[in-house]
């Protein structure tokens, strides 16, 4: 591996100048230039962004113009900032420079992660023990509140239901589609995969609009919702589907939307796994007289296990946080609530930071096993690399 720090074992150390700092001495010009450049760039960016809201008349009140300026200043500014950061580090004495360059390169990326994910996660845990304005500690009060509330228990139950149904069905359907597609002609495969895959491009809100139309209920004889039209043609009576709690039908109908959106993703990954299965293992099974069914279960599936788990976990994480569909279509009415929507209600509608944070902490606890699995899995992969 190429190293920035001189590897003592490497042949002829120092034979190649490793960075722009050839002399190995500090360059005050670079350090100063870098520092000044970063400050000036940062100041200019800040001023421009603030001017959008304070002085919109400068931009003729045009959203498009503001947008263009914002894009240019945002993207360009980020690049210029980095340029000066690099200049600053290269200006340091060589030893310090070589040691610091990796961290300079990591700084913006890891800085964002720390600021946007790690700090808030810790702060949220902290808030979960505080009152609704995060001003004084209330101990376990928030947890008592949520576990004591019927709404929360119902949401947990619904989330568990989503967890049990959606990942499994998505993987199963994805596998079926992948296997079927694999047996089509090249063109047929490509077209049909695109069709199944397309919903991946659609937002949850857009998908809710699409399926809201399918589940539509009209007063009167003529039903314009597809589901009710089919149902009444079969002799049933038109229903307001999303308010039917019996057997959790409304929740299941919401799950259908997520499955519809995600099967394409599952199919793409599983399909590439199928194509990775060596043809001769299938041939060998065929020669041994295995039926297609046996080949599928005993040859194909075991060799796709890794991908199946990957897809399953990805969908699982998605399901844990499912929000938009429920929020848009039912907002938790008729016992369809889920944790993420409950969180949104507490945060946004009731403004109770304490309870909202406690709900997120529960969510965080729920993903912890996945997180541990993920890290282990990664370590294993790295060892095989």
């Amino acid at each position, binding site marked *: 591996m190429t190293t920035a720090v001189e590897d003592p074992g490497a042949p002829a150390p120092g034979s190649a100048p490793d960075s722009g700092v050839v002399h190995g001495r500090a360059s005050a010009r670079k350090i100063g230039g870098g520092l000044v450049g970063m400050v000036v760039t940062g100041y200019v960016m800040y001023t421009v962004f603030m001017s959008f809201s304070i002085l919109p008349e400068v931009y003729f009140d045009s959203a498009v113009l503001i947008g263009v300026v914002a894009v240019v200043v945002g993207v360009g500014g980020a690049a210029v900032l980095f340029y000066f950061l690099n200049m600053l580090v290269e200006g340091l004495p060589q030893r310090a420079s070589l*040691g610091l360059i990796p961290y300079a390169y990591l700084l913006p990326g890891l800085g964002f992660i720390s600021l*946007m994910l790690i700090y808030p*996660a810790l702060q949220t845990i902290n808030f979960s023990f505080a009152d609704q304005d995060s001003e004084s500690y209330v101990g376990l009060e928030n947890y008592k509140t949520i576990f004591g509330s019927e709404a929360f228990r119902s949401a947990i139950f619904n989330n568990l239901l989503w967890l049990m149904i959606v990942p499994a069905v998505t993987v199963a359907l994805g596998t079926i*589609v992948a296997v079927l597609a694999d047996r089509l002609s*090249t063109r047929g495969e490509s077209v049909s995969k695109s069709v199944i895959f397309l919903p991946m491009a659609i937002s949850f809100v857009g998908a809710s609009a*699409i399926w809201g139309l399918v589940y539509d209920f009209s007063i009167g004889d003529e039903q314009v919702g597809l589901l009710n039209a089919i149902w009444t043609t079969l002799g049933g009576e038109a229903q307001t589907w999303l308010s039917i709690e019996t057997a959790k039908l409304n929740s299941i109908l919401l799950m259908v939307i997520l499955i519809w959106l995600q099967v394409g993703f599952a199919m793409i990954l599983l*399909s*590439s796994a199928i*194509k990775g299965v060596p043809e001769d293992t299938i041939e060998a099974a065929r020669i041994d007289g295995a039926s297609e069914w046996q080949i599928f279960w005993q040859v194909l599936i075991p060799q796709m296990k890794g991908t199946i788990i990957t897809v399953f976990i990805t969908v699982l994480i998605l399901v844990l946080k499912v929000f938009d569909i429920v929020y848009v279509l039912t907002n938790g009415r008729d016992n369809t609530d889920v944790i993420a929507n409950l969180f949104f209600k507490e945060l946004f509608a009731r403004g109770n930071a304490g309870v909202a944070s406690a709900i997120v902490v529960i969510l965080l606890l729920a993903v912890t096993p996945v997180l541990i699995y993920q890290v282990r899995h990664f370590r294993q992969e790295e060892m095989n690399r």
Partner: protein
Amino acid sequence: MSSTTVTKEAGLATKATRSTPSRTPGTMKDGRRRSWVSILGMLALCVLWTLPTLGLLVTSFRSRIDAASTGWWTILFNPGNAGWTTDNYRRVFEGTDLGSGFVNSLVVAIPATVIPIMFAAFAAYAFTFMEFRGKDFLFVGIVAVMVIPIQVAFQPMLNLLGPRGLDISQEFFAVWLLHTGFGMPLAIYVLRNYMATLPKTIIESAKMDGATHYQTFWRLIVPMSVPALAAFAILQFLWVWNDFLIAKLFLGSGGNATVIVELQSLLGTQGLGRELLTAGAFVSMVLPMVVFFALQRFFVRGLTSGAVKG
């Protein structure tokens, strides 16, 4: 998630190499037997998958009275006399803020796609081609952070960016920062996995020629990583464009609202004006669909390179 799949191009079908081009009835071009079960099964699934979207599309071109009195499928049997109209689309742009929402979404999505990529590429470069203390620990941290639900960030970030803090919530700037942060772990992960497959000798020889890391990065690594950069860019663009939660919380429903937030407020409308919903939904979907069709190959690559996002 699995780093080995990075290089495995999922491809939307290449198997012309499998066999000979002799064609008899019941066989395909590549000589495999034509499987009618597969064809019919797939056809059924495709119809099932298309119908809901088709219904929306057809309805968006019908007048309110038509749409409320007969099912959209009825006009497929009589398309010449169906009273097609683009009125809903005209009214969506004239009567609602969906048009400006569209522009806002672009303003949100483009920087929120480009900025994280630039920063992530630098970090990925450091993780791939440099040695430093704490490297493994930091990278494992990134793998772990990928699954953290973004909901954890909302309350602290509302405090930090809102009126109690920097007071930039409701501004595009706030949303760019958030999307940059939330997209970062995955971006670093995907790019690093890709860069790890690049030949080390090229980097070595650049070093011999006296190139700085900065030069090597821009002149060699960035051009060579274009497939992975594009793959992540598409994923991130679609995520940001389609995002509702962050846009709703940090941009709100005012002048900076994105097209998805505008669509959500249309969804709340009952009775009069409800017919605009279908047209609005389609407006919000057009761009992601175009991106999707134009760049599907890259998109697939992005997904297969381990796209878990918290």
